[in-house]
C-alpha cells in the first residue's frame, strides 16, 4: 500500500515512438519534489513516469491496484493534459476510493475546466510542495479543511467550484528536501542529472509560461545547497553529467560563479549543461562555468531580427548575443541557440533574417534548434491572440507539441508555417528536429 502515488502521463504524439532514441528525456523533478514533501510529512510516496516506463494500460492498472493509494497525483503540461484526464478516468475505475489531484503548468491556468471532468477531485495551482502535504493530511487522515489548502480548487457539495488563493511562492528554496530521486527510474533517462537551482524569471517574453508558473522574481538556492545536492546525486546515483534546468541558470552571475567555485573546491569533476540568457551572463562567468565542467550552454535566441526580438519582448540585442556566443566558443563551450517561429509580427523578410542568422551561427560552430510558436496557457500570447493578429486553428492540446502549427498569424497560414518550420529544421540540424535531439547527441559526444 502506498499513501500517495504520483504519475507523469505519457506524451500523446506518435512521434514519441521513434523520437525516443534521439530526444532528450529528463526525470519529472516536480514529482520528485512533491514526493519528498509527502515523505517528510510521514507518508509513503511512489512515482510512475509513463514517459519512459513502458507499461500498457492493463499493467498500469494492476500496479496501481496493488499500490492501493489513498491519493493519486497527475502532472500536466498542455501537451500531456488530455492524457492525464484519460489516465484519471481509468484510475477512478481501478481504485475508486482514491482521490485524484491534478497539478502542473496546464491546470494551473485551466483549473475550472479540469474540474468539469468528474474523474478529477482536486486541482492544485502553482507551486505545490506545501499544499500537497496538507491535501494528503486531509485525504488520508481527515485532518484540516480543504478551504485552508492554498491553491486548491475543488467542487463543493452544491457542485460549484471553490477556488482557494494560490500559495505564496516559496522564498526559502534551501528549506525544501531534495527531490525523491530514489523513486525515479534514473537509468531510463538520457539526462538523468536534472537539477533545479532556482525558480522564477524576470524576463517578459510573450510566448513563455515560466513566470506565470514560477513567478517573475528570481528565487535562488544558495550555492552550498546546490553543490550539496550535486554531490549527493553523484554519490547516491553515480551521476556525473548534470543538467541545470533552471529557466536562467545565470540569473545572478556572481552566484553562478560561486556555484562554480564550490564545484571546483569540492573537486567533483563533473560535466554539465545549462540554459542562460545573454543579458545575464558575461565572459568571466562563462569562463568560470567552463572551469567547473560546463560543456553546453543554451541561449534562447528566438529570432534573427532585432525588430522581432523587440516585439516579443525578449529583451536581448543580437550584437550582444553574437559577442557572448563568440566568447563561449573561444572559451571552449558548446553553445546552442533555440529559435521559435513564426512570431506574431514575422514576415518573409524577417524570417530570411533569421535564416541568415542561423547560417551565420552554424559557420561559427554554434548549434541551433527550432520550434513552432505555440500559445501555452499563462502566456501573454495566449491572452492576446486577437490583438496580436493571431487565429487559433487547433484546440486539440494533444497536438501542442511545438511542431504542429496551432495558430495562424497575419502573415502566415498553417501551410506557410509548416514550410518555414521544416526548412528551418533542415537548415538547423540537418535532420535532427529538436533541441532535445541536439542536446542528446551532444551529451553522447561528451560522455
Amino acid at each position, binding site marked *: 500500500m502506498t499513501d500517495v502515488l504520483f504519475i507523469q*502521463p*505519457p*506524451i*500523446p*504524439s*506518435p*512521434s*514519441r*515512438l*521513434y*523520437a525516443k*532514441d534521439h530526444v532528450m528525456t529528463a526525470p519529472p523533478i516536480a514529482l520528485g519534489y512533491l514526493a519528498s514533501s509527502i515523505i517528510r510529512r510521514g507518508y509513503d510516496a*511512489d*512515482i*510512475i513516469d*509513463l514517459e519512459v*516506463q*513502458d*507499461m*500498457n*494500460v492493463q*499493467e*498500469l492498472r494492476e*500496479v496501481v491496484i496493488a*499500490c492501493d493509494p489513498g491519493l493519486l497525483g497527475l502532472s500536466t503540461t498542455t501537451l500531456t493534459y*488530455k*492524457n492525464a484526464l*484519460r*489516465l484519471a478516468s*481509468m484510475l477512478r475505475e481501478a481504485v475508486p476510493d482514491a482521490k485524484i489531484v491534478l497539478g502542473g503548468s496546464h491546470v494551473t491556468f485551466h483549473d475550472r475546466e479540469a474540474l468539469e471532468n468528474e474523474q478529477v477531485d482536486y486541482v492544485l495551482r502553482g507551486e505545490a510542495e506545501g499544499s500537497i502535504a496538507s491535501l494528503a493530511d486531509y485525504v488520508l487522515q481527515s485532518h484540516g479543511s480543504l478551504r485552508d489548502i492554498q491553491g486548491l480548487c475543488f467542487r463543493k457539495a452544491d457542485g460549484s467550484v471553490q477556488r482557494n488563493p494560490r500559495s505564496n511562492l516559496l522564498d526559502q528554496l534551501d528549506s525544501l528536501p531534495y527531490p525523491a530521486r*530514489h*523513486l*525515479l*527510474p534514473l537509468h531510463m533517462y538520457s539526462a538523468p542529472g536534472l537539477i533545479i537551482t532556482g525558480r522564477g524569471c524576470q524576463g517578459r517574453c510573450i510566448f513563455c509560461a515560466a513566470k506565470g508558473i514560477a513567478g517573475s522574481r528570481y528565487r535562488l538556492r544558495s550555492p552550498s545547497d546546490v553543490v550539496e545536492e550535486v554531490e549527493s546525486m553523484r554519490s547516491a546515483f553515480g551521476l556525473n553529467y548534470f543538467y541545470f534546468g533552471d529557466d536562467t541558470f545565470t540569473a545572478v552571475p556572481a552566484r553562478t560563479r560561486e556555484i562554480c567555485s564550490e564545484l571546483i573546491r569540492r573537486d567533483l569533476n563533473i560535466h554539465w549543461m545549462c540554459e542562460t540568457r545573454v543579458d545575464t551572463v558575461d565572459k568571466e562567468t562563462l569562463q568560470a562555468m567552463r572551469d567547473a565542467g560546463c560543456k553546453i550552454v543554451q541561449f534562447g535566441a528566438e529570432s534573427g531580427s532585432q525588430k522581432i526580438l523587440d516585439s516579443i519582448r525578449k529583451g536581448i540585442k543580437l550584437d550582444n548575443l553574437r559577442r557572448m556566443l563568440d566568447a563561449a566558443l573561444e572559451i571552449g563551450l558548446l553553445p546552442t541557440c533555440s529559435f521559435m517561429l513564426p512570431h506574431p509580427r514575422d514576415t518573409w523578410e524577417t524570417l530570411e533574417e533569421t535564416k541568415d542568422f542561423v547560417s551565420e551561427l552554424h559557420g561559427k560552430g554554434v548549434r541551433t534548434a527550432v520550434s513552432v510558436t505555440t500559445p501555452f496557457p499563462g502566456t501573454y500570447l495566449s491572452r492576446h491572440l486577437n490583438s496580436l493578429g493571431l487565429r487559433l486553428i487547433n484546440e486539440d492540446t*494533444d*497536438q501542442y*507539441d511545438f*511542431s*504542429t502549427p496551432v495558430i495562424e498569424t497575419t502573415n502566415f497560414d498553417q*501551410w506557410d508555417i*509548416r*514550410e518555414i*518550420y*521544416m*526548412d528551418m*529544421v*533542415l537548415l538547423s540540424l540537418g*535532420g535532427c*528536429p529538436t533541441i532535445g535531439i541536439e542536446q542528446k547527441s551532444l551529451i553522447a559526444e561528451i560522455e
Partner: protein
Amino acid sequence: MIIGCDEMNQENIARRKPRRTTEIWKLSRENNTITALGPDGLIELNQLGAFLWLRFDGLHSLSDILIELGDLYPEVQPAQLQTDLSEFFSYLRSQRLVVSTWDPLEGVCMNKGRQPS
C-alpha cells in the same frame, strides 16, 4: 487489405485510423506534393501520396479514405484502389512514417516494461 497486422480481420483493418508519426512536413502548393522528415530521413510524396498523407491524421479510417479515393478516381476499379492504398500504407509503415492506429495513452506504452520502484 494487408497492412502488416495479419491477425486482424478485414473489417477491423478498414476501421483503423492511421496516424503519421512526424509533424515535420510541408505541402508544396504549386504541385500538391509533400516532403516529410521521418525517423529515417526525408521522403517526397506525389499528389496522390499527399492526399493520403493529409488523411493519415488519426481521424480518418481506411474505409473512409477508400470512399474518398473512389470519389476522386471514379474510373478506377475499387479493388485496384484498395490495393494501391494498401501498398502505399505498407510503404509508409516500412519507413516508420505512419502507424496503423494510434491511442495516445496505450500506443506509447507498447512494450512490456518495468514496475515502479
